[in-house]
């Protein structure tokens, strides 16, 4: 198998790593030993032999001076001077700085003590000179008796120490050799590692280059086959299988990815129903060319086959890897005879943003081009629209379920595009998030809505503003900007409510602290999102005092079991002392039910008013006040 080669390379890395480690350890060890030996050699000099040599030399000089005195070559004073120098060596050796070293020489202390005793014994004779000249031959004899022992001792000690030093020098050379060898090993390991890295880099570069060339040539070949089929008027379909999700595996490097791609290609050629062509078209995409069929679910069957084949795990380094592909399909156009576009169409079918139906096959249809073009254009123009404030604010009144009196306005933003019409709030929010402009859009919209609201509040001081925001977007800067906007418009208090959309069960600690921060600053929170999450948050008493029921939930209340559900829910709310806001009330029947079970609730929806622009909202509010009056 091809991936065995990769394993081998893996071992190479381990091998080099071990070699590096051992070389480094060896280098440190040998350097330490070398330093120790070097220090030992320099500390261990021939000092004890040297001290003996000095004594030997003074002994020889004294005997020579004595002989000269006999021959009247020197006078008594000169003889005594030499005697004193000779005498002064003994205290140094026997009880001075050289004693410790002398004691290392076997027999030296005894010999030198005897010698010193003899030297002290002859002192009165020398002092009595020239009267005691007759004793000079005896003195000479006594002194010469020590010549042989001291010479033997000096020679023996000198050779012993020389031999010892030679041994140490030899050892030092060996250690130096080891030191050099470990250095060489370390250098070699580093060199090999660098070579391997360079080879890998070059191979990766070659593989990337090869990948794009292969993709291009395969694409051309495939288009040629498609053109041939079109000329023969044979209907065909082309599946594009995108496996780019394999890049999520962080442990994989480029050569391994190419091996995996090869493995996937092998698997795709072994489908239960063999395709006409299987080609790698680059960028982690494969194309499968098959005969087309009009049968319903035909695409799904093929997608199922492909998925099943790709579910075969790729085994590497003791682990199994699998890839979840994105599959798109396009059918041939019987009218078209040349330049088949199906490959590009199939690619296009998987290009839009992922939908909830991730597992199904994306079938190309003509609207897709329009959709992709629209998305690209909108993304391009978004920043300009944001700068020029091309977004329109709309409001929906929120009324009390019992009196139907407006109590709040729910804000929403949409983009009125010259070419593509209205871009609704959900799509706009998703687009802003993908472009990283969500915070700017939100703050800009909030400021505009606060200004609108301030005007209307002059007519009705009870009217609140409800503004939606996704909980996960909360951060320090956004919180600060919200607080600043509210303060500048003096909107803190019950006149402003933040509708907080919860989509995650676990909120990060920071987001929770931001919510608390907003609450403690006087911002009222309405919890939106799946009901169980909202209840959980409210029961934990750190998110809000309002729960928003979604339009889908309100629509389901009129179905079987809805009343029982409402009854249980109302009990739960009263236990938690929490208010409720019901969105999307579309009929009188729903309103009646809500009045019966949730009498204090706030309601909104098309039964009262749709989302209205600024002018229409003013008219609405005007009518409402006239009715009240």
């Amino acid at each position: 198998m091809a991936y065995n080669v990769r394993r081998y390379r893996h071992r190479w890395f381990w091998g080099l790593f071990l070699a590096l480690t051992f070389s480094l350890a060896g280098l440190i060890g040998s350097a330490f030993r070398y330093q120790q030996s070097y220090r030992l050699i320099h500390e261990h000099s021939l000092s004890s032999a040297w001290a003996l040599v000095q004594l030997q030399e003074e002994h020889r000089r004294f005997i020579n001076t004595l002989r000269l005195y006999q021959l009247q070559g020197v006078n008594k004073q000169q003889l005594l001077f030499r005697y004193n120098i000779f005498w002064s060596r003994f205290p140094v050796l026997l009880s001075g700085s050289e004693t410790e070293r002398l004691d290392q020489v076997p027999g030296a202390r005894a010999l030198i003590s005897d010698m010193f005793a003899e030297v002290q014994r002859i002192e009165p004779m020398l002092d009595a000179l020239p009267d005691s000249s007759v004793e000079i031959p005896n003195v000479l004899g006594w002194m010469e008796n020590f010549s042989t022992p001291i010479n033997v001792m000096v020679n023996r000690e000198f050779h012993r120490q020389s031999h010892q030093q030679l041994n140490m020098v030899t050892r030092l050379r060996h250690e130096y050799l080891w030191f050099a060898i470990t250095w060489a090993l370390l250098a070699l390991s580093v060199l090999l590692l660098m070579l391997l890295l360079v080879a890998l880099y070059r191979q990766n570069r070659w593989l990337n280059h090869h990948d794009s060339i292969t993709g291009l040539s395969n694409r051309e070949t495939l288009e040629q086959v498609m053109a041939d089929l079109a000329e023969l008027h044979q209907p065909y379909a082309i599946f594009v299988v995108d496996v780019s999700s394999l890049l999520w595996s962080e442990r994989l490097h480029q050569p391994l990815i190419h091996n995996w791609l090869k493995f996937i290609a092998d698997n795709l050629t072994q489908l239960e129903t063999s395709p006409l062509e299987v080609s790698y078209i680059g960028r982690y995409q494969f194309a499968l060319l098959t005969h087309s069929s009009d049968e319903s679910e035909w695409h799904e069957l093929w997608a199922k086959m492909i998925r099943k084949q790709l579910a075969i795990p790729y085994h590497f380094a003791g682990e199994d890897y699998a890839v979840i592909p994105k599959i798109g399909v396009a059918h041939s156009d019987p009218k078209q005879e040349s330049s088949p576009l199906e490959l590009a169409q199939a690619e296009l079918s998987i290009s839009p943003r992922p939908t909830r139906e991730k597992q199904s096959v994306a079938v190309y249809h003509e609207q897709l081009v329009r959709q992709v073009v629209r998305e690209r254009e909108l993304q391009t123009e978004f920043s300009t629209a944001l700068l020029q404030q091309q977004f329109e604010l709309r409001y929906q009144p929120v009324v009390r379920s019992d009196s139907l009196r407006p109590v709040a306005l729910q804000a929403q933003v949409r983009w009125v595009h010259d070419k593509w019409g209205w871009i609704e709030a959900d799509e706009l929010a998703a687009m802003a998030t993908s472009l990283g402009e969500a915070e700017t859009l939100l703050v800009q919209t909030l400021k505009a809505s606060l200004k609108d609201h301030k005007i209307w509040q002059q007519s009705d001081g009870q009217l609140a503003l409800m503004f939606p925001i996704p909980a996960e977007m909360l951060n320090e800067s956004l919180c600060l900007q919200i607080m600043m906007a509210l303060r500048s418009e003096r909107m803190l208090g019950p006149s402003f409510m933040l509708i907080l959309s919860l989509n995650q069960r676990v909120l990060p600690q920071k987001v929770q602290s931001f919510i608390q921060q907003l609450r403690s600053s006087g911002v009222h929170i309405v919890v939106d999102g799946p009901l169980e999450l909202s209840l959980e948050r409210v029961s934990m008493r750190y998110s809000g005092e309002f729960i928003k029921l979604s339009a889908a939930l309100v629509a389901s209340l009129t179905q079987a079991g809805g009343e029982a559900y409402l009854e249980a829910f109302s009990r739960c709310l009263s236990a938690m002392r929490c208010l409720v806001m019901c969105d999307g009330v579309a009929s009188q029947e729903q309103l009646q039910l809500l009045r019966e079970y949730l009498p204090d609730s706030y309601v909104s929806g098309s039964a009262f008013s749709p989302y209205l622009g600024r002018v229409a909202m003013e008219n609405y509010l005007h009518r409402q006040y006239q009715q009240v009056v």
Partner: protein
Amino acid sequence: MKYLWKWGTTLIGVLLLTQMAWAQADDSSVILTISGLKTPYQGKYRVKLTRADLLKLPQQTFTTANPWVDQPHQYRGPLLADVLKKYGITSTRLVLVALNDYRITMDFSSVERFEPILAWSDNGETMTVRNHGPLWLMFPIDRFSELEQPVYNSYMIWQLRRIIVAN
């Protein structure tokens, strides 16, 4: 009796004078020779110094320990710098030679700041050949901790007899 007293006092006087002459001879014997070349191509010079010559110079005294004695001793003698200065020696490269011909080369500029002395007295007693004399180049080791290094120990030459000034 009169003659006896006369000859007795004369003998004592002669003996005292002889002793003084010996003492004089002891102080007047050469204990240090300083030699070297004068400025290039102008011949050699040789200065022979007796203890009396050294005593004419300002004397320094300090107490210090060293590797050759068990406990701190008090040493006395003139500064080596003063001796060199007196004889107009400017070169700082000195070869110090002991009685047993042991010799060491020393760069005086590197040790001048330690103020070494040519000690002739050890614990108040004049040093003899038998106890490291007649001169011992002594450093105040207790005053400067860096003097405990082996290289400075090797400069502390005893039984110093000659200083060769190298150019």
